[in-house]
């Protein structure tokens, strides 16, 4: 069944989003930056290597345990810049606000953005505000864009994974996705769930100071770890093998996922990164990451292989083998 309308799936961050970009946007806007399909574009202007990125935030609910739409909007763009090895410097912020939205909530969001920007060491240098009639949007949408500087000898891209690289994950997966899902649906669990939304630029800076053999960085946001690994495998034309037992999931997150029949591999993370790095530097990187508040759970979850380019395999906990595919559609609880 061909689609003649935009469906929610097209914004899932999974396969449908990729197909929409590849089939509709890329042919229209085609250029060398977009073709790379990275978290941000890298360009050299006046001899300086810059990273440039934008993202829009439409999260529901707008306030959630561990953050809100404002801090998320700062962290998201800061992290997208950091995933190219950039030092984020300046952000723009665009608000689309629904008529009737609470002034107190808007103030709280702006305050949260101020704090998030201060922690990440970035300046909100320009902005824009639009108010639309009630019902024309859902409460508030925020767009952020940002620029940052990359050291000349840093070359990090989704296309650079090499066979033999170790795959490093900075901590537990699915915290943000399951928190949002359970908040949105009003589901209650005994153990509190909390988003991992956080800025990763200092973590990346410390990693780069320790090693220049980091080939890929990616924050596994919408679509989750499973989709991000597939993106890297596709962009770099390599295979990836991960080991299920090494992928950290908090017990409370695992329990909520089990109950809902949702695979944590496909839930969003907003404060985690994946790195593909040369095997000889992997141990050193893990040690450095453990010293940063946002890398304390860092571990090696697998390796890049030369077989089966474009595919991701998992060695399961009981020793079986299976494919890890991209997310298809939004993760939904099972009926049965």
């Amino acid at each position, binding site marked *: *069944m*061909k*689609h003649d*309308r*935009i*469906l*929610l*799936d097209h914004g899932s961050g999974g*396969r*449908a989003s990729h*197909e929409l970009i590849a089939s509709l946007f890329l042919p229209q806007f085609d250029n060398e930056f977009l073709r790379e399909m990275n978290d941000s574009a890298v360009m050299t202007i006046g001899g300086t290597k810059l990273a440039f990125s934008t993202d829009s935030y439409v999260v529901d609910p707008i306030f959630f345990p561990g953050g809100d739409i404002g801090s998320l909007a700062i962290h998201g763009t800061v992290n997208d810049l950091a995933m190219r090895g950039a030092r984020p410097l300046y952000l723009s912020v665009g608000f689309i606000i629904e008529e009737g939205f609470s002034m107190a909530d808007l103030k709280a969001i702006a305050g949260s953005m101020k704090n998030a920007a201060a922690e990440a060491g970035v300046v909100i240098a320009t902005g824009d505000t639009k108010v639309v009639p009630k019902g024309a949007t859902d409460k508030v949408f925020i767009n952020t864009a940002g620029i940052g500087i990359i050291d000349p000898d840093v070359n990090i891209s989704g296309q650079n994974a090499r066979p033999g690289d170790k795959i490093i994950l900075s901590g537990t997966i699915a915290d943000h996705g399951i928190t949002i899902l359970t908040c949105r*649906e009003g*589901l209650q669990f005994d153990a509190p769930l909390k988003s991992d939304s956080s800025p990763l630029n200092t973590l990346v800076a410390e990693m780069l100071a320790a090693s220049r053999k980091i080939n890929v960085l990616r924050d596994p946001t919408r679509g989750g770890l499973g989709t991000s690994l597939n993106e890297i495998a596709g962009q770099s034309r390599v295979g990836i093998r991960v080991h299920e*037992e090494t992928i950290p999931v908090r*017990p409370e997150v*695992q*329990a909520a996922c*089990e109950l*809902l*029949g949702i*695979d944590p591999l496909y839930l969003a993370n907003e404060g985690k990164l994946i790195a593909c790095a040369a095997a000889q530097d992997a141990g050193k990187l893990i040690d450095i990451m453990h010293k940063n508040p946002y890398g304390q759970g860092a571990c090696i979850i697998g390796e890049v292989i030369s077989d089966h380019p474009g*595919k991701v*395999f*998992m*060695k*399961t*906990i*009981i*020793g*079986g*083998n*299976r*494919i890890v*595919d991209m997310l*298809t*559609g*939004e993760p*939904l*609880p*099972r*009926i*049965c």
Partner: protein
Amino acid sequence: MKHLDEYRDPHLAGKLIDKIKALSHRPVRLMEVCGTHTVSIFRSGIRSLLPPSITLLSGPGCPVCVTATEEIDKFIKLGQQKDTIVATFGDLVRVPGSSSSLQKERADGADIRVVYSTFDALDIARRNPSRTVVFLAVGFETTAPTIAAAVKEAKKEGINNFYILPAHKIIPPAMEALLAGGELAIDGFICPGHVSVIIGADAYRPVADKYHIPCVVAGFEPVDILQTIYMLLSQIEEGKAIVEIQYRRAVNFTGNEKALALLSEVFETCDAPWRGLGTIPDSGLRLRNNYRALDIETRFDLTVPKAQDHPGCSCGDILRGVKTPLDCVLYRQVCTPSNPYGPCMVSTEGTCAAYYKYHD
């Protein structure tokens, strides 16, 4: 995660695999009836660990997949009614009907909302007194009791804008229909865990006795499934065909009395259409007279033209276990999770989706 770790213990799993290998003297075909089992088997890589003599077949255990196209067409027609909110479990929105899907209808402006329980739909009805709210009552015996409870609550509270569109299916008649069809050669059933929590393992005795088929009710963790396979192999080896429970931590032989009483108060069995299996007598649930007014079909005429499945779609054969997705000409060629031609590629518990997602 104490309650899960022991059922994912690699050491225990390894021991069971060794025992299974030691018992595998001849080709054996086992069918898992439940879609959650299908997914669990793929997710844990169990197929890659079994000896080649054991074939695992996926049966009609995905509630979305067995929903007939004519029922999907009815859902779509319902979504097109003015001032109607359709509340549904998630997977259903993507299943193609004859010419549309609930997802496409939603993009065209229909008010279709994904809910996590029937009580969420009831809340929508409370908050929208001027709209008609209809819950699409799809699923097996697992979900039917909560739907019965919501129906009972709606009647008790006098919520007069809440309805359901019953499309429930019950599992044991489908297992019997599969065997009665004669085209399926299987040596044992891996019986569904969630359904059995409600109906109890005794519900499979008629099937086991009449067709001399071993039945074991299984849990959903890798060790549960491996132990179930071992229990089935043991029965086959000893020439037995009895009903056993591996999933003892959740299932007994007589079922959940309270849930069964609720089901029986609100619903009665009726003939129901199954995708791939046709109409099976007494395999569906409809509201009893006392609650019949909450069936939306008493208010709207939802008659639809004879449904058209996509030519070439093998979902029906796959649900009967006579084909695997790899035998379907559409699989991976044109039918993919983002462009599904049939429900088995849509549902997270569908066989084609599981093959696509996990099969090398």
